[in-house]
């Protein structure tokens, strides 16, 4: 196990973590601020990817596709909020789960109907193709570095928005005591709509950024949704900071586990046993981590205040 390999794997872990953060941020805001369980968050990620592919087909420019897809993802999020979610805020969590699960089924089928079942792809923007040499013979794709960079930028932007602006203050206040904020003359409904639209746009952004790496196909949001829930549970529901730390933690644990579990186990057991146990253990690691965190801190690493 060389140092360069370790460095590369840490970068890989960061990239997965940043992606998870982009999805989990919206999920944790909606869950924390509006007390609304949105299982359909994963299909909004999928939709971002599909919209990017569609707009790229029309405009032939990645930047234009990015902008248009973001706008469309935002618009679609607002539409969903107005058409479906708004009517469910006061209801039980079980109603949220059933309704948003219905939206998953509907959108997965709709996407297949419109774009077909075959996986689609979005090319990496011309200027950002290729890879940089981190060490002789060890190349790292530029696009993955771009994902890490843009994810960190979004994290910084979110931090400023939530803790340094009036809007952010209202969001935090609304999360703690919505009735009081409403009594002070703030339109809490509009605030919720904005938060929801923004969350949907973040999920869409994650989908757009990952589309050049992963195949764009129906159901692509379903697996990532589970990871995003693990992230917000570990981080503390409603906490952006918690989502950030937990996302990076999950990304690193998952990637390093996958890369080195077999090698580490080989120190204790025969090679063939390690090969059987290693992959199984690696895929359990994040759930073990979640169990440990919940045992030590039942409300997550950074529980949002007032909950």
């Amino acid at each position, binding site marked *: 196990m*060389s140092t*360069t*390999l370790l460095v*590369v*794997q840490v970068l*890989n872990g960061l*990239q*997965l973590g940043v992606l998870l953060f982009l999805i989990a941020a919206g999920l944790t805001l909606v869950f924390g601020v509006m007390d609304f369980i949105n299982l359909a968050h994963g299909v909004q990620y999928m939709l971002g990817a599909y919209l990017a592919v569609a707009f790229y087909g029309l405009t032939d420019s990645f930047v234009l596709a990015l902008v248009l897809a973001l706008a469309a993802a935002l618009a679609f999020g607002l539409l969903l909020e107005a058409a479906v979610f708004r009517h469910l805020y006061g209801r039980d969590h079980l109603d949220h789960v059933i309704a948003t699960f219905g939206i998953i089924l509907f959108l997965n089928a709709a996407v*297949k109907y419109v774009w077909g*079942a*075959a*996986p*689609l*792809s979005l090319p*990496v923007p011309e200027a950002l*193709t*290729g*890879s940089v040499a981190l060490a002789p*013979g*060890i*190349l*790292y*794709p530029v*696009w*993955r570095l771009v994902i890490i960079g843009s994810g960190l930028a979004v994290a910084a932007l979110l931090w400023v928005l939530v803790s340094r602006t009036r809007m952010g203050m209202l969001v935090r206040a609304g999360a703690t005591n919505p009735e009081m904020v409403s009594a002070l003359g703030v339109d809490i409904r509009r605030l919720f709509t904005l938060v929801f639209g923004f969350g949907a746009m973040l999920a869409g952004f994650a989908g757009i950024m990952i589309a*050049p*790496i*992963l*195949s*764009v*196909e*129906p*159901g*692509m949001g379903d*697996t990532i949704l589970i990871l995003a829930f693990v992230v917000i549970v570990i981080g503390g529901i409603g906490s952006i900071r918690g989502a950030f730390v937990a996302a990076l933690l999950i990304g690193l644990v998952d*990637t390093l586990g*996958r*890369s080195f579990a*077999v090698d580490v186990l080989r120190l204790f057991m025969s090679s063939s046993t390690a*090969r059987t146990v290693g*992959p*199984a253990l690696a*895929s359990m690691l994040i759930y073990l981590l979640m169990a440990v965190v919940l045992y030590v801190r039942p409300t997550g690493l950074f529980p949002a205040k007032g909950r």
Partner: protein
Amino acid sequence: MTRTIPLLAAVAAVALVAPAQAQDKAQEKLKIGVIATLSGPPAVLGQQIRNGFQLAVRDLGGKLGGREVEVLVQDDELKPDIAVGKVKAFVERDKVDFVVGPVFSNILQAIVKPATDGGAILISPNAGTSNYAGRDCNPNLFVTSYQNDQMHEISGKHAQDSGKKTAFIMAPNYQAGKDSLAGFKRWFKGEILDEVYVPLNQLDYSAELSKIAAAKPEVVFVFLPGGMGVNFVKQYRQAGLADTIPVFSTFTVDESTLPAQQDAALGFFAGSNWAPNLDNPQNKAFVAAYEAAFGAVPATYAFQAYDTALLIDSALKATKGDTKDRDALRAALKKADFVSLRGDFRYNTNNYPVQDFYLTKVAKRPDGKYQTEIVEKVFDDYADPYVKSCKMK
């Protein structure tokens, strides 16, 4: 009096019609149930099977062996319990003579018993597991594809023959994945630098790609079907590895995944029993007709389904359309007296094919579409090794 006339007429009509119906009995429509995965991401594969089979029926004028055909299509949803229910309905309610399907091996394991116990003949146009080639071989099961291991063995044999010394091999962590790497190692005798099992349906291969780059093998072998392959190939290219380390593969680059992989897959190798550019007249006609009808290049799934229809046609011609005498029907099927799109084809004693296998390579056609093309023949008239434990003669 006026009332009895219509009544008499009706009685007379029934009397006239009844024997006519009895005569028609032998010529009634031949019912075939097609079961394939038509929903979820692997729907593309099931669609190829359905399309290939229906194209063949159309090319044969809507008749197989001279009998009108009614093709019933069902989706197994890639769930064994659903598949069993649909196959039972084919056999018990629809009384089909043939069940054609499925795509996936785990579905095959589930439907062989309900289909064959129910009196139908099951023809698999894709899945070919080792147990049915060996100890569980079944006189009412015919396979028009291959025994699964053979597709993986092609890469191992070719890597060995071309003098490769080191390999990095990777597959999903389930039975078919383990079988695949075992198939590769059956022929490859060089050093295996690492053998990696990834979770089924893993999307991001960054960690594994970094390991490959660090291990610097002479050849990489992967079995990453469907969406896994699409992701792996794109990321392998993006990591800058595609120009330095050749990839041999099974079910990772084919015509069902190439529309998504495109240029990223150029130069990737695969093992196959067929390719769209296989040079014989019947195959050329098939590929042209398929592309005209469905606007996509056919993959192995489609051609094997087409061959399945040809096989049924040939057997019914031999029995003059009769399906009642099952012994005669089975014997006729076993003769495989049809011109396969792949050329050489005959049945072994276990009802699995003996055929040629090729190394193929992804190429871009002048019209901008992508397909696999034959590089060289790796196995000639190759039979699977499991036939030894099959008791059928």
